[in-house]
């Protein structure tokens, strides 16, 4: 295990927490601030975690996927659209509508991933170009349909956005959620819980199962895998599509768990930040999750500081400009990608099409 990397992660998180605690401690007990920050961090890290898992499945199998952003955006839109159809056109109750929405989101992630797989595995298109195609396509399709369906005269929703069925309710983890103060961390919405579970499931799959061994083999040395009878193309297709499902679930976070609405471009670079998290975590699920929490902390800081705006000391006034704090995740991304955390090693055949 790479302790230095986790040390850096813990340190950055501690510093960001420290800033908020120092500012708010006169109004709110530090423990309460910390717990609230932790709960927010875990929640807002959800799409990053899922995006990073998406990248891990693809790249461990040797396919670079910079289309995660687009996959999430498309999933956010189609998941939301499906839930609205179910709810307002077919008249289902909110809960089943939301569940169908999540399924639709996951499937649309998978569908875009299938396109990426076909481009990069079968047609051997440059994978960066393939990913860019996905991103542009997702922006185009979601923007266009959003306008056509909701804002055009005579369109199906008659020029006004119907009521969405709401957002996924949170689930209290029995017992743990009843712990005073810290219990709040265990009172989370379902996609967040699923994301954390998927981190550990992915870890197990990658490092303890036949599937994982073969996935890593085609990402490291596809020819070696071929010589022992493993179908390289099939393994790669399957993993890219699984990765698409992860990105799809991450997309569902935006419109079915976080807010009950869709806005064009609402993923706002999270897909790219999750790639940074994947690299920072050295292509391991647990490392990538830890890295996602760093970015999540930066965002949680921004959210929590809003409660303490008046308490910010004059000499720290710059923190009142929410856009400065809002930049933190992006600045962190750049710093992290410059390699201050030491060397990371991608799978050896990452991004290289396999030629027999």
């Amino acid at each position, binding site marked *: 295990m790479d302790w230095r990397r986790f040390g850096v992660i813990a340190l950055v998180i501690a510093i960001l927490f420290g800033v908020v605690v120092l500012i708010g401690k006169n109004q709110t007990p530090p423990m309460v601030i910390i717990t609230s920050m932790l709960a927010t961090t875990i929640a807002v890290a959800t799409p990053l975690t899922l995006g990073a898992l998406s990248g891990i499945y693809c790249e461990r199998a040797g396919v670079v996927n910079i289309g995660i952003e687009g996959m999430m955006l498309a999933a956010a839109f189609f998941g939301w659209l499906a839930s609205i159809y179910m709810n307002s056109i077919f008249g289902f109750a909110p809960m089943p509508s939301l569940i169908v929405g999540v399924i639709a989101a996951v499937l649309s992630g998978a569908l875009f991933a299938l396109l990426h797989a076909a481009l990069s595995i079968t047609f051997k298109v440059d994978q960066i170009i393939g990913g860019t195609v996905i991103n542009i396509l997702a922006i185009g399709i979601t923007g266009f349909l959003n306008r056509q369906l909701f804002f055009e005269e005579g369109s199906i929703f008659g020029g006004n956005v119907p009521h969405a069925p709401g957002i996924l309710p949170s689930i209290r983890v029995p017992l743990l959620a009843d712990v005073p103060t810290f219990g709040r961390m265990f009172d989370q919405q379902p996609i967040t819980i699923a994301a954390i579970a998927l981190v550990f499931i992915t870890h*197990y799959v990658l490092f*303890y*199962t*036949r599937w994982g*061994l*073969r996935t*890593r*083999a085609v990402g*490291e*040395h596809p*020819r*070696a*895998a*071929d*010589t*022992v*009878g*493993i179908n390289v193309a099939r393994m790669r297709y399957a993993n890219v599509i699984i990765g698409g499902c992860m990105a799809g679930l991450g997309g569902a976070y935006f419109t079915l768990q976080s807010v009950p609405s869709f806005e064009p471009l609402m993923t706002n670079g999270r897909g790219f930040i999750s790639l940074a998290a994947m690299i920072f975590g050295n292509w391991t699920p647990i490392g990538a999750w830890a890295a996602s929490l760093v970015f999540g902390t930066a965002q949680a800081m921004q959210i929590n500081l809003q409660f303490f705006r008046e308490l910010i000391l004059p000499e720290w006034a710059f923190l009142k400009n929410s856009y400065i704090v809002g930049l933190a995740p992006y600045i962190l991304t750049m710093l992290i990608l410059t390699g201050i955390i030491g060397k990371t090693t991608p799978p*050896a055949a990452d991004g290289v099409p396999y030629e*027999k």
Partner: protein
Amino acid sequence: MTENYMLSEARPEPRRRIETNIVLEAKGITKQFPGVLANDKVNFDLRKGEIHALLGENGAGKSTLMNLIYGLHRPDKGDVIVNGKTAAIHSPNDSISLGIGMVHQHFMLIPVFTVAENVMLGDETIKRGALDRNTVAAKINEISKQYGLDADPNALVGDLPVGLQQRVEIVKTLYRNAEIVILDEPTAVLTPQEAEDLFRIMRDLTARGVSIIFITHKLKEALAIADRITVMRAGRVINTVLPSETDSAQLANMMVGRQVILTVDKKDHEAKEAVLKVENLSVRDQRDLETVHHVSFFVRGGEVLGIAGVQGNGQTELSEALTGLRHPTGGKVFISGHDVTGKPPRVMTETGLAHIPEDRQRHGLVMSYSVADNMALCDYYHPPFSKRGVIQPKALDENARRLISAFDVRTPSPFVNAGKLSGGNQQKVIVARELSRSVKLVIANQPTRGLDVGSIEYIHSVIVKMRDNGAAVLLVSAELDEIMALSDRIAVMYRGQIVAMVETKKSTREQLGLWMAGAHVETA
């Protein structure tokens, strides 16, 4: 199925009985690659328990034939018959289940996996949904003990020396109960002593009924170990002979189709003062590991210093540091008294260095440039090639035509892309560019690797001519025969150090082989 390697501890019988039943037969195999007929109606058979050597020059089509038998490629025509039945081999899965195993010329191992993971890949043992590493490890230990293969299941493959990696490959085939084992140029990466060890393992295997196809381009090895020898040339089988009924000269003749001179003609050398001086040089590779440790030596004008050693003992990093492709981490390099330590390649070139690089396609040529442009890569920025910053096509063209005829480069025209030429002619383009200038020092790294015999002889004669004209020559080669034929003095590199330095006249193959294996380090 598993009895194969769970047989008793009985010692292999001292004398092998060669049974005559044929376990594998290739009939009329033909395979066309773009521009090359790699296999042309090839017939080949393998008997139970024999070692059948497949001998041929680089590019003769040996690996292609084996890849077809193993199912990595499909033949255009022809059949493979295994144990008397025509086999439908569409992928390695099919050949593996027919009991065929192959150790590839370039190992098919994943460096970041453990030995156990590499061995089980594709044929995993599963317990309650998870990989059963313990059972696999036990099985590996058993195979390893039985054949003296010495493979630790928990070691990371990337940490193992090549000799051990090769054994992991052999374990991989035995783990799958292979009864036919194909070894593609297994000795290319081994010291002579390690090769002896491999031969012992091969004999053990055949004693237990395994049949082996042994591919090599070295005559001596085929004669030493094979029960039968089949020679291939330019995609065809020339003949199959018994070692007892042939000799090196006849085999060489079959391999290249004419009488070959196995020695290089050269006069006694007249060494002058040192041209290249290396003091205490240390170099790190791209993983930041120090692969050259405090090396010091010199090369005089009018002599060839050969650097012998098994591949991967620091020769690559050493020559990169001497030619400006890599920054040394310590020490000094002087060319004709000028300190050129860590200087860029252009400074080296202008000080009088000619470099024939190890990887000719990556460092020697721009494959997508024409032959004429490639021939001017060292001094395109000087007149007559360039005037006021503008390239003069006419000068490039004249230069190219002159060099093409002087160095006998076979190319349709000077405007053809270098990538279109054969390996031998690509190398001649590099040699023409580098050696047509006035140079004081020639650094040639693996100058004849993968070339046909004609080109090899030509390049050897040019190197000797440079030496006779007074240049200092540093020759790095993994072919001990080449080093011994060309060098006046020989330095042996082992684990990043020069462990021995001798006059060629006073050295023997055996002693050099021992040094290459690190013998002095262990006895010291």
